[in-house]
Structures are given as structure tokens and as C-alpha cells.
């Protein structure tokens, strides 16, 4: 048996991609700063610029496909819908057209663009963080900073539960199909097949939570000793620290500027 892969555990874990290899807490910091900055700047061009930036970063991080497969859904579901609602109903003076109580103005369109840019920028930052940061690495860093391992387990198992729910739903749907129940077709047929599944799915999730806590107890999860870790992450470089700190300072300055403008 070739145990070459074990070498990974003897050294800090890296993927070889400089973006993915940023410290998880640096990535969290950047996500918050970059994702929230459009809320401070309040300019839709900046917001869309940030969204574009996240797409470019996802390409550089080598996770464009998984990032965009989720991002376009946010764009379509929330972005487009929000834009329509805002454009149709926000107040404004320069009317472009109106019909059946819907009043589209220049102001409402800008308001729509503004809100969409905010949603896209923040959701882009969040999705990018999730796609470039393995959750076990993130929780490892949290534990290194003194966060309880119970909290880190809750984060990890919550993410796993999402995957488990999807898999269980698929299994139940397949067994429904095997019993001759129509699970495909139009939206109503799908909903008719899916609704009865929700109850067992939730009950199953609740009981598996109980089982999982016993399983973790069997692994001495709450043993009153200091835990050790197989995982080891590289320490953040000076360059990384400077970039994060620089962006943090810019964000704080923007925030101060926004408050000053608001007070004036």
C-alpha cells in the first residue's frame, strides 16, 4: 500500500492556488469588507464592479464553474426579481411609462439597479468565500483562535446536513418513483410528489441529529483534554496581512466618510 498521501498530514495544507491558500480568517475578513463596501459606497456601478471582481477572482481561484452555477441563480432569482419590483413600484418624478398602477421612473430604475448591485455584491462575496474555503479549514482556524470545538462542529455538521438533506430527498423521491408515483412533469406534478416528502425528510434530519451527537460522544468529542489536530494550515504571510489590513483601513475610511456625509 502506498502511503504517500499521508505526507500531506506532516506539513501545512496547501492547494497551490494563492487565492485558495489564503488563511480562512483572511478570506472571511475580505468577504466582509468587500461584500459590505457597496452598502457604504451606495453606487450601483461600484456594486456591479464588485460582482464582476468576484467572478474574476473565482476564475483565478479555479472555482468559476461551481461559483457561477450558484451565482447565476441568485442573479436570476433575487437580482432580477428585486429589480422588477423596485423599478415598478419605487417612487420617482421622471416617468418613463406607467400602466395598471405600475409606474416606472428613472429614479426607480436607478433604485432597482442599486439594490440589485448590493445583493449581487454581498452574495457574490459570500458564495466566493464558501467556494474557496473548505469548512474544516475555516473551523480549524476558529478553534485556533479560541472558539469552542462545539461551535466548530455545529458549523461543520450544519453544512453536512444540507448535503445529507439533498441526498435523503433524492432517496425518498426515488423510492416514491419505484412505487409508481409520478415525480416528473410540470411544476404542479413535481410539487404534488415533493410535498409529502418534506415531513419524513425533516423527521429524519431531527433523528439523525440525535444519532450524530451520540456518534460524536463515542469519539470522545467532549473529553476534558486539549484536542490535537491532524490539520495544519500555513501561517498568513506578511504580504497577506498587509493586503487585508490595507483593505480594512480603506473600508473604515469609507465608513467614516459615509457617516460624515450623512451628518452634513
Amino acid at each position, binding site marked *: *500500500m502506498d*502511503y504517500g*498521501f*499521508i505526507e500531506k*498530514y*506532516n506539513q501545512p495544507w496547501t492547494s497551490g492556488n494563492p487565492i485558495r491558500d489564503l488563511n480562512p480568517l483572511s478570506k472571511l475578513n475580505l468577504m466582509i469588507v468587500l461584500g459590505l463596501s457597496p452598502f457604504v459606497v451606495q453606487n450601483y456601478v461600484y456594486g456591479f464592479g464588485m460582482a464582476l471582481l468576484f467572478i474574476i477572482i473565482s476564475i483565478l481561484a479555479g472555482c468559476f464553474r461551481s461559483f457561477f452555477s450558484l451565482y447565476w441563480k441568485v442573479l436570476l432569482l433575487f437580482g432580477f426579481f428585486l429589480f422588477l419590483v423596485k423599478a415598478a413600484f419605487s417612487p420617482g418624478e421622471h416617468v418613463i411609462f406607467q400602466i395598471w398602477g405600475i409606474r416606472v421612473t428613472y429614479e426607480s430604475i436607478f433604485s432597482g439597479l442599486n439594490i440589485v448591485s448590493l445583493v449581487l455584491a454581498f452574495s457574490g462575496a459570500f458564495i466566493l468565500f464558501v467556494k474557496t474555503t*473548505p469548512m*474544516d479549514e475555516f473551523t480549524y482556524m476558529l478553534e485556533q483562535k479560541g472558539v469552542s470545538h462545539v461551535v466548530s*462542529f455545529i458549523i*461543520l*455538521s450544519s453544512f*453536512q446536513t444540507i*448535503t*445529507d438533506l439533498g441526498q435523503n430527498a433524492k432517496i425518498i423521491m426515488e423510492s416514491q418513483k419505484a412505487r409508481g408515483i409520478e415525480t416528473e412533469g410540470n411544476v404542479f406534478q413535481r410539487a404534488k410528489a415533493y410535498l409529502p416528502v418534506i415531513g419524513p425528510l425533516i423527521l429524519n434530519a431531527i433523528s*439523525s441529529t440525535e*444519532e*450524530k*451527537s*451520540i*456518534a*460524536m*460522544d*463515542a*469519539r*470522545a*468529542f*467532549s*473529553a*476534558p*483534554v*486539549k*484536542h*490535537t*489536530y*491532524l490539520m*495544519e494550515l500555513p501561517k498568513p504571510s506578511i504580504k497577506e496581512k498587509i493586503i487585508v489590513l490595507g483593505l480594512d483601513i480603506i473600508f473604515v475610511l469609507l465608513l467614516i466618510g459615509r457617516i460624515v456625509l450623512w451628518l452634513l
Partner: protein
Amino acid sequence: MAFIKLKNITYTYPLAKEPALRNMSCELERGKFYGVIGENAGGKTTFCNLLRGLIPHFYRGELEGEMTIDGQEIRNIDVDILSTQIGYIFQNPFTQISGVKKTVFEEIALGMENLGVPKEEIIQQVIEIAELVKIEDLLQKDPNQLSGGQRQKVAFASIIAMDTDVFVIDEPTSQLDPQGTESIFEIIDKLKKQAKTIILVEHKIDLVAEYADELIVIGQGEILAKGDVHQVLSDFSLQTRGVMFPQAALLSKALSEKGFDFPNIPVTKSECIQMLKERMR
């Protein structure tokens, strides 16, 4: 000296009308291998939960009687400390996988990480255990994507890697083929030789009879019999209580009925062959 003592233990699960365990009394010694046998839904898993302290600390319900582990009353015991002393392998391997580790290697290491074992020792121990349980080829796989049998082996490996003094093992071979079952019993035998205390629930009576020191027969929540393997399996009246007997014992019984008497009732294949050889001389 008894390590675990039960005196008149009766336990009822929350909301249950009938007790799952009734008036149980027994003593378990360190370094012995106890086989727990009996009909389905007779209380064997509940007995395991009690020995591991999950009753009354996790499953609340109503517990009557006295029970001590290493001299400490079960109700006052710190279950977090108990988890470092008693390893528990569940009946259902699908619920024993943590779900938070990406590879089988990390899954096996999890218990040792929680026990604060140094990294170098963890890596060495995982390799040794994987070779012992014959799962080296699974080490890089995702534990959540394994088959039932593979999960059972990984769950087994994960617990024995923690190297506790006592192991409570609930049907560890339910999803394994005969070859896998045999290898699990060989590992349990190795643990026994390391003076570990083993409490094993298992339906494969031929194997239990071969490896165990003592048997505990549980049915309808009661201890129906407890003692040396030969002593317990000489009582064929237990067949009426749903207890399976080894092929060797059944053969000797059938031959006895035809007037072919044995000096003792054999419980293993080798004992049976030996006795037949002696009888035919």
C-alpha cells in the same frame, strides 16, 4: 474484582409503557470477553447503552436499581470522562460516521484528536489500525460515500483506534460477508489478548462461542442466563426463549437423542471434531 456491577436494574425509555430492561443484576470483570446473545428486541442494545452510560445521561427515561462502573455510581459518573474509557461501536454503522471528515484517514483519526493524542502518534496508529482491519484501500475515500459494510469496518476501526480499556460492541458484523466477519472476530480476539474488556452483542453464535469467555443471554429485558460459554450452551431449554445454539452443540444434541453420548456438550467445531474422534476410537 467486578468492574461493572448491576443490581436490580430496571429501565424504561421516555414515553414507553413497558420497561426495556427488567430487574437486571450481574457483574462484569476486567479483561474478559463477554458475548451477549438473545432474541431480537430483547434489550441487548439497551443493555449496551446502559454500560456505556448513554442511559441515563443521554436517554433520560426512568432508571431504577444500582449500577457502578469502576466503583462509581452511573448517575454520578462524568460521561465525558467515560467516553475516554469505554469505546462503543453501534449497531448501525450509518449513524457512526461523523459526517464532518473528508477522508476515512481523518475519520479514524477523529477520536484520537479528541483524546489529545500527538499528531505523529495519530498518523502511525491510523496506519496500523487500517492494516489490521484491512481497509488501507479506503483511507483516501470520502466516509460519506462508503457502502454499509465499508462503513461498518471504518466505524469499528475508528473506535478501536482510540485504544480504550473497555469496548462495547453492538453487532459489528451485521453488514459484513463471512470473510469480513471472521476478520473482525480475529481483531476482537487480539484485543482480548491485550487484556481489553469486551462486551460483544452478536447473533453469529458459532463465532461467539469460539471466542467469548462468558455469555450473557438477554430476552424480554431480562438476563436469562450468564456464565461460562459451555455452561450456558448446555442448557437447551434456552432454545424456547429464542436463543440460537452453535452447530456443534446442536449436532451433539441430535446425536445424543440417537444414543450417541458425548462427555460434554461441544460448542465449537474443533471441540466437536475432537469429541467425535475420541468417541469413535
